[in-house]
């Protein structure tokens, strides 16, 4: 946990530096026709993030000297279920770019229910067809909100 804390604080510090560097381009303390130059506000924010993260970093090190026990960032055995959710979801989004959200979601539901939920095939088929279909009727037909179409299936006018 301590290591993760430190890494996160370091990432924030680099974000702060990045923000400050970008703000410099727009001028930080200048004054133009529209008042203070556009770089001032983000520069202050970036500076604040750096300061805050340095404090967090300091606290992390101070604490690590006193305490002995440190909980791991991810409890043992918890990484697998988290990845089991994260990776298929990311794959679904990747697929959406090619075959559209409905087909991708149907596949995703089916894969997740079958291999992780271990449901019966009939249940898998029913849910993974009905849910995207319900989404289609609800959003596309009723609310008239277009949902992502894939580059491969766009021609089918589905």
């Amino acid at each position: 946990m301590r290591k993760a804390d430190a890494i996160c604080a370091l990432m924030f510090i680099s974000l702060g530096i990045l923000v400050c560097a970008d703000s410099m381009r727009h001028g930080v303390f200048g004054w133009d026709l529209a008042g203070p130059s556009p770089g001032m506000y983000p520069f202050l924010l970036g500076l604040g993030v750096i300061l805050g993260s340095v404090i967090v970093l300091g606290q992390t090190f101070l604490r690590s000297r006193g305490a002995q026990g440190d909980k791991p960032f991810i409890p043992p055995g918890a990484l697998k279920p988290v990845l089991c959710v994260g990776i298929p979801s990311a794959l679904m989004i990747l697929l959406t770019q090619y075959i559209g959200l409905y087909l991708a979601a149907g596949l995703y539901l089916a894969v997740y229910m079958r291999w992780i939920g271990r449901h019966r095939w009939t249940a898998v088929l029913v849910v993974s067809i009905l849910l995207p279909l319900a989404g289609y009727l609800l959003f596309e037909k009723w609310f008239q909100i277009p949902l992502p179409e894939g580059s491969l299936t766009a021609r089918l006018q589905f």
Partner: protein
Amino acid sequence: MEALRSLLLGFGVFLTPYNLMVAVVGIFVGAVVGVLPGLGVANGVAILIPMTFRMHANSAIILLAAIYWGGLFGGVITSILFNIPGEPWSVATTFDGYPMAKKGEAGKALTAAFCSHFVGAMFATLMLTFFAPLVAEFSLRFGPPEIFAVMMLTFSAMVGLVGRSPAKSVVSILFGLILAAVGLDIITGGLRLTFGAVELMGGFNFLVVVIGLFGIGEIFLTVEEGLKMQGVTAKMSMRTVITTMKEMPRFWRTLIRGALIGCWMGIKPGGATPASFMSYGFAKQLSKTPEEFGTGTMEGVVAPEVAAHAAGVSAMLPMITLGIPGSPTAAVMLGGLMIWGLQPGPMLFKEHPDFVWGLIASIWASNALGVLIVLCFVPLFVAILRAPFSVLMPGIVFLCAIGAYAVSNRMIDIWYMIIFGVVGYVFKKLDYPLAPMVLALVLGDLAESAMRQSLIMSQGSPWIFFTQPIAGVVNGLAILFFCWPAFKAIRGRLSKGKNLSGRDVRKVAPVDA
């Protein structure tokens, strides 16, 4: 009397068949959202905002508010029957609600909780009806320095009263503000923080961020903890409901105390959770039988629930009068306001009285409707909770993806959603509070323009924030709030050893959602 006449106008807006239907649908959806793990109220509202683009603003806000109330009701069900607090302010309810359910008094506990919600809502709405116009009238005098000062107060209240680690809260707020600043500069039209990437030109939409943080991030947390859905069955019968309702007046002192605490705490951002704990604590200390608390006493359910719901309603006060949301859900609604083309803040009362009073009238009516709906459909909501997680989870991700895409029909937003899901998961684990970040993201542009306009007024002198009377007082308060954790640390060190004050509220529940 002015307020009563306006309220009548509001009921005129609300009491059309369409708006009534919208309210009922909203409560229903909200209760489902509140019950489902990984689909918090703020997230539910964010997913549904794109569906309101085609609605009239009056109906749209009624829908979103109804989802909010429904979500507050729904959270009760999980905390009493399953010992899973759906939202952090339901944590105190589990102390006595779950033991009651285990004793076989689930129906009684649920009825008591719903009735307390009703009382809390009525109390807070009463306050809102008569108080909101006054606050709005007063804040009409606010210029950019005052608006900026109020925002500073909001943020420092988040740092001083909410977060466990003040430094992390500050970083979280600044991160939100930075995200809001990405893209077109609102005043000069220059591009900032885009680093040449076309995708970043449009900036980050807060709805997408909310869906990622509270939706996807919550799912990661839920699977990590391993979901155990071992609930107690609830038998609701008309008789339990009626006998419980007859018992309610016995707790009038707890009810009024809790409602007052809720109204007071709810105005400040992130107030609902501390309010529920405070109300529970007071009820226990002032009770004749404090030893019964924690073993399943009805008063222990009534006290936190009345305060939590009163706080939820009074969080609307700063939102409609000042344009400063008191909770992430209110922040999402405020963003909705801007999308529908309304300028949040005191001018709303002058320019769109039908909108404001329609909303206030709908709070009265939706909460009354809500009690009836949730009481009737408890078994249905419980059935939803018992659905297997491997079906629910991909379904929720599917819904979140639709919500994220529908915001502005950009594929990249779905990717942002997943990325912010990971961010939310990591932040939650490392104790970076999410609520202040969302607030900062929504308020970012307003805060920046208020600051720049003030500086233009003063020709560059930052003292304008302290020399204007109202702004000066508010900024002074902000600094006080900001330094509060330091004061408390010093006091804590002085009184070490004789600390009898009991549990630290914020250790039990970091404030979110």
